[in-house]
């Protein structure tokens, strides 16, 4: 602690060389996303061995379109959670944009490319509104987005009491066509996920977003524009809902008011399963993508192996629970691993233990 100034790196020589298994253990601790990726693979192998059709091209394409929906929402959702907030609106907003994009396209006859742009922009604008409520008026994210959750659900019914048919081929290509056998929607998801990864891990704004969620006051005092980072997360989340709305509309070939429900919870679950901490400041895009993939595979896979729909939600619940429990274990082992290098930490634990032991309960 005192005296000789050993700086960076030196204590490493004292570290025991880890065995192969403990190295794998450490890696799992450092990169928890690996576990979820493995779970995705295992789940897929199990389902396709029960029902080989799961691995067929058409089923995989279906899977890809579903993944695009959940996955894109999860990307936006995870950003808001990383800032320490939450977005309850994506499900309702998606349903809203299913109707709105169809309405633009069919009822208002807006050119299709423009529909892509204005629907996304509309979503971003709605996210901006959330950001305004949260940062300027100091409304809790939960409440600010809950308002939208309720409002948008009613609004889409109001706009389209009856489904609005869509017959624009470019628009329908979004979910209906493929490029190299991959659905366009899935490609859109891949691009968005890569952008999300790049944003979080390769831009300074992304790092600052983590900092805002990790310790808001520390971020503020370090000169980070906290409010702008928060607003951006909700803007992205809103825009993602716009994109997903169009994908769903394209998939359904109509603007149907009650097209999706509960997707915000799936997006939140995907984030949490993927290792995004609800406290904020933690989580990576690869985990979010894997979390979304796991949920989609479970959902579609359980259908494919003829499991009753009731059980699907239960399975998802169990997976969520498992993810949370594993995360707790991971955090504990991380704290223990950290304590190797810490002079105070193990002692604190020792003292705590000693304190408890002075008062044995019978």
């Amino acid at each position: 602690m005192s005296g000789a100034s050993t700086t960076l790196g030196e204590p490493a020589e004292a570290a025991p060389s880890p065995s192969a298994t403990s190295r794998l253990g450490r890696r799992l601790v450092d990169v928890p996303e690996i576990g979820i990726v493995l779970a995705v693979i295992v789940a897929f192998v199990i389902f396709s061995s029960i029902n080989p059709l799961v691995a067929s091209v058409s089923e995989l394409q279906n899977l890809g379109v579903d993944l695009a929906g959940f996955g894109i929402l999860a990307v936006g959702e995870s950003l808001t959670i990383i800032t320490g907030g939450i977005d309850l609106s994506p499900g309702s907003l998606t349903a809203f944009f299913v109707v709105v994009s169809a309405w633009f396209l069919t009822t208002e006859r807006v050119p299709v490319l423009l529909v892509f742009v204005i629907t996304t922009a509309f979503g971003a604008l709605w996210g901006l509104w959330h950001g305004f409520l949260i940062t300027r008026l100091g409304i809790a994210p939960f409440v600010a987005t809950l308002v939208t959750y309720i409002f948008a659900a009613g609004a889409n019914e109001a706009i389209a009491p009856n489904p609005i048919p869509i017959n624009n081929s470019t628009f329908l290509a979004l979910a209906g066509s493929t490029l190299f056998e991959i659905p366009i929607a899935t490609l859109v998801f891949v691009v968005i996920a890569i952008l999300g990864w790049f944003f979080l891990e390769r831009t300074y704004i992304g790092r600052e977003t983590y900092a805002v969620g990790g310790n808001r006051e520390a971020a503020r005092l370090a000169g980070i524009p906290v409010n702008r980072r928060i607003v951006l997360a909700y803007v992205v989340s809103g825009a993602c809902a716009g994109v997903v709305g169009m994908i769903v509309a394209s998939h359904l070939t109509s603007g149907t008011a009650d097209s999706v429900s509960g997707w915000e919870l799936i997006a939140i679950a995907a984030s949490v399963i993927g290792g995004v901490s609800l406290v904020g400041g933690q989580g990576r895009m690869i985990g979010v993508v894997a979390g979304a993939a796991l949920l989609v595979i479970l959902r579609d896979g359980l259908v494919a192996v003829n499991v009753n729909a009731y059980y699907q939600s239960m399975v998802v619940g169990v997976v969520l629970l498992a993810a949370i429990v594993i995360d707790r274990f991971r955090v504990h082992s991380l704290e223990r691993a950290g304590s190797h290098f810490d002079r105070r930490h193990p002692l604190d634990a020792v003292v705590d233990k000693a304190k408890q032991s002075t008062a044995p309960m019978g």
Partner: protein
Amino acid sequence: MSQGTSSITGRPGAPGEDLVLTGVRKAYGPVVVLDVDHLALRRGEVVGLVGENGAGKSTMMGVVAGSVRPDTGTVSIGGRVLGAGGPLHAQHLGVAMVSQEFPLVGQLTAAENLLLGRRPGKNRHLVDKRAADAVARGILAEVGLDISPRRKVDSLSVAQRQMLEIAKALGRKPLVLILDEPTSALAPAESDIVLQLARRHAAGGGIVIFVGHRMHEVQALSDRFIVLRNGRIVSDLRREEATEQRLVRDMVGRDIEAMAEVSSSQANRPVAFEARQLAAEGLGPLDLAVREGEIVGVAGLMGSGRSRLLHVIAGARPSTHGEMRLSNSRYRPRNTCDAVAAGVGLVPEDRKAQALLLDSPIRWNVTLAVLRRISWRRLVLSVRSDKKEADRIVAAARVRCTTPEQAARALSGGNQQRLVFGRWIAVQPRLLLLDEPTRGVDVGAKAEIYSLIDEQRKQGMAIVVVSSELEELLLMCHRIIVMRGGRIAAEFKRSEFSKERIIAAAAIDRVAG
């Protein structure tokens, strides 16, 4: 120090030596936290155990109390070897420990707490309240604690709880009484009682191990001093050898030198920061100028506006009046981003709550305020430039870590503080504001933080330090301003420094307007 003779054989110790540690070693991973060849304590001794945070005091106490199992070695208590039974066995052998925080059960009464695990009276299954009260009253009287045994612990003051805790330990009639900073929550009168109790326990043939942070208390009480450093016993001193200077030197491993010469006046350096008639809610109006390479200390009581002043300058709180200038250009921060961009940094008071991303890597923490600058085209943050910058800062701020990828949470207090300091070394602001820069760090780490501050000062940084430790300000500042009620009550040049006058200026109300 009687070393060697009985250490290898595992013999429980010579007669009269009733607590013997032999070859005790404990490591957590690669870090050896305790390594004691031989230590024998005799009945009737009060032993002061001193050392910095992390020196191994807690581990040593834990080993004696049975809650920490050493990797090697034996502990024998009253001639019997402490076995694998752990804390219960240690208790059985006569070890009682009083710690700083209270493992008392709040919903239970004083008597119930005192007798936890014991059941006076005849019935084996039912609690005989009257018998319990009688026993408890006796124990309470012994420590001079005048409360009803039926009082709930929740309703007691912190000091009363601490006394109750001591009563509980003494109630077991232990051979070895371990007191871990027992007086930190107590007023002087109560501390005296504790010290007397400890003396009495030793006089009655017990052994007292006393850990205290108030050095004069340890000195007043102990017959013998064990100094731990890096898990080893570096000295074992008799009362007359143990001067304060000697103890501190042994704890730290060297004499703490006064900080590098600050006597050279900075009066002819250019002014780096100036505030005129600066006012904010609960602050000012006040004038303040800091020159390049100058350290200005801010003294004052809690609530005198010290921290508020720093926060206003750092743009973290709005100012309502007045103007500020930074290197002769107008400085009007609307928020902390403006302040950092203009070259003002703040090391806040509470590093965990206000400065650190505890669960993020050290790397993220040190580069937090320079992310934009080290990004390619002011946008793309490459892992390489981030790592390079982090390595540079970790070295410059002398943060001791295995790798910058470790979580900041795993560092000790002093290391965390250097980490936060490093964040601003990276920025190189013109004006650095330090709010309690050495709070909660140990003596050695303090000295290092002082030298880091001095290095930055020498490079021309203007520095304002708020501290509750007057010695610290006297040591490192060129000037000290004293705040009271949000205003500057007095100002002292280095040649006029006087502890008494500064304290008087901070504490005395309304002498000057």
